[in-house]
């Protein structure tokens, strides 16, 4: 009987990848906090996770020039954030909100990491047969 890492780890690796992607987007929002006309964006996490975990039909590549989607979850479109307060230069980044979201996101990233670590420990104890 072979051990399937994919089955053992469940959706945690996908969560990790999504959290990483979201961290990138939030970092870009904060880096562009002073850029005129920049619109803050965010990943709709539950929709993205649903898309990433369910099988989805990918576009067929019939020619060499066709783009291949890098990862299936990138199909989830980013949404623009509704600012609480508008600024004159058209920028919708609110730094305190982005900071809070970034902190939340990195904590959730660490949680996913812990789950994966725990799974590896379980597998290790199953392999060695020692508690």
């Amino acid at each position: 009987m072979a051990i399937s890492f994919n089955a053992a780890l469940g959706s945690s690796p996908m969560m990790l990848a999504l959290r990483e992607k979201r961290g990138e987007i939030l970092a870009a929002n904060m880096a562009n906090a002073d850029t005129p006309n920049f619109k803050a964006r965010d990943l709709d996490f539950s929709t993205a996770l649903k898309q990433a975990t369910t099988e989805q039909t990918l576009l067929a590549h019939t020619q060499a020039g066709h783009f291949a989607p890098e990862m299936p979850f990138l199909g989830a479109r980013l949404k623009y954030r509704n600012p609480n307060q508008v600024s004159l230069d058209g920028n919708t980044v609110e730094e305190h909100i982005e900071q809070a979201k970034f902190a939340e996101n990195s904590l959730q990233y660490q949680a996913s990491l812990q789950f994966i670590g725990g799974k590896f420990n379980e597998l290790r104890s199953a392999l060695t047969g020692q508690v």
Partner: protein
Amino acid sequence: MSSLNIFDIAGSGMNAQTVRLNLVASNIANANSVSSSAGDVYKSRQPVFGAELKNVIDAQNAASKVEIRGIVESKAPAVMEYAPNHPMADKDGYIFKPNVNSVEEMANMMSASRSYQNNIEVLNTAKQMMLQTLKMGQ
């Protein structure tokens, strides 16, 4: 490794803010450089930030870095002052002072340094996340 993107993005933000801080320093340092004609006098300089979207296939879905689109000189008129005894005075007795508004520049400086700190925090958090990822399963 795509996770290093966060470092690139925060780095571009820090770079942009550094340019802004440099220009603030230049403006404040030259606030009192007088000249004898309106054309030669130092003019306040400001950076123009933009979101970097080149080399991006899917612009709507990509996290974008910050780029400096250019540095513009303020169009505000130079401050004319009647000082006939000044060695730089023109034939009518006027000297020209730069159009630097030091209150504006101080506020600009604080904003730039806050944004820089913000990017550093992002960088530190991302670094911690990556270090923990390296230790996964140990």
